[in-house]
């Protein structure tokens, strides 16, 4: 399609061309989110911190802490970092919070847009590849210190298995076997999972492991907020299985978190 229509048209009747995705629709209208010229050193921006995911016998668990920091200040105590991407996948973010949230909104809209137009959902790999493209487009900002690194997981309806994908700032997409973690406390969470993870665990154990890994990360990393039972701040924990995306209730998490905190050395 060349340029803009000469007079405002209420509807966009252009025939469907390959890659006529929601993102390219935004592009045609100059509506793609843009932070041109932004540089980390000029700004105090909120950053999200530890998110992780692990596989268990029914699918995948994904979890994230709730803290966002700006420099050495705790900017927000109840940030959501784990989101449903669609009915069969979840996405979590670490990095510059404002940009990451916008990126996720675009990703969610794209998946739903595709599903409605085509009448079928994108394959899980297709979703991961599209997310990689969004991260790649973000690369110039990553060089300026404003990186966004997501974690993606879902239930592959064809392979009938939970799958896990990690990304790097240049848009590299990697399939992970058992567990993955990213963000400032990601290394700590990962080393905890490395020591404690066993394949084939059930849901209860997987949830506990996810919360324990977050607690371990929060103990070593000031930018990660552990469960706060007194204030009722619980991590975001979700599962994706053959029946789809499900959020774990705060009550259930409070029980798990209390048990985990009591058992910590």
């Amino acid at each position: 399609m060349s340029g803009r229509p000469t007079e405002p048209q209420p509807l966009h009747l252009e025939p469907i061309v390959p890659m006529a995705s929601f993102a390219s629709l935004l592009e045609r209208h100059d509506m793609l989110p843009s932070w041109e010229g932004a540089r980390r050193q000029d700004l105090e921006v909120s950053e999200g911190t530890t998110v992780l995911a692990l596989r268990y016998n029914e699918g995948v668990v994904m979890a994230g802490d709730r803290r966002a920091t700006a420099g050495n200040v705790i900017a927000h105590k109840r940030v959501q970092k784990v989101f449903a991407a669609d009915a069969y996948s979840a996405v979590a973010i670490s990095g510059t919070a404002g940009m990451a949230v916008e990126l996720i909104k675009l990703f969610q809209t794209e998946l739903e847009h595709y599903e409605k137009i085509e009448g079928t959902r994108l394959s899980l790999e297709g979703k991961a590849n599209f997310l990689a493209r969004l991260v790649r487009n973000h690369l110039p900002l990553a060089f300026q210190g404003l990186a966004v690194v997501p974690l993606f997981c879902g239930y592959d309806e064809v392979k009938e298995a939970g799958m896990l994908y990690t990304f790097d700032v240049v848009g590299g997409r990697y399939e992970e076997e058992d567990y993955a973690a990213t963000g400032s406390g990601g290394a700590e969470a990962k080393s905890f999972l490395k020591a404690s993870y066993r394949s084939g665990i059930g849901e209860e154990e997987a949830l506990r492991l996810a919360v324990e890994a977050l607690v371990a990360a929060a103990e070593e990393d000031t930018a990660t907020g552990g469960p706060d039972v007194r204030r009722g701040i619980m991590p975001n924990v979700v599962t994706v299985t053959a029946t789809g995306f499900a959020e774990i209730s705060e009550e259930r998490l409070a029980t798990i978190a209390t048990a985990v905190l009591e058992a910590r050395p």
Partner: protein
Amino acid sequence: MMPFYVPPEQLIKDRADFARKGIAYGRSIVALEYVDGVLLIGANPSSSLHKLGEIYDRIAFAGVGRFNEFETLRVAGIRYADLKGYSYGRGDVTGKGLANAYSQTIGQIFTHEVKPYEVEVIVAEVGDSTQETSLFRVQFDGTMRTEESHAAIGGKDEDLAARLGESHQPDVPLQVALETAMAAIEAVEERAATPGEWEAAVLDRTLGRRKFRRLDRAEIEAARAGD
């Protein structure tokens, strides 16, 4: 460059006759309110080329006439809704806004393009209650109407609407609405349809954010067996 003068009345009439003929040739679709929302149903021999579709959280689309033309409108509706919802908020996407956009676009095509669209569409929006539910019908020339409790497009739409006016109540369960709709369509079209020939979907207000759901063959068969 027209060789002869054609009065605008004649031009409009010719175009309207042309479009009407194309639309009447196809089979009908009806939208009916039932206790939990809106049912959309029509006979469709193809199981992959849909006449009904999801537009947004609470909004559904139905089209009759030329497939490629109403398919273009369906996709354009999704673009309109997703763009608006992304820019503002999900609650700002309304059935009325979409029906208006269809009305403008189809009306413009009717007068400006070489050939008018041979289509008619329904935009259905389910609200939290029957009072907040709306059915819009947009015709080939852009005329937009709001309908109460039921709407019919395509084929012998007027006969169908009259029949539904007598037989349909908006507060019935889904099974009853399905049976009423199928009986009315079969009576007006004067032919029976097998369960596999129906295409049906609902906007169900008891569902989560996305209220649109296609009905499978078993549900349609169950409604048939119920009578």
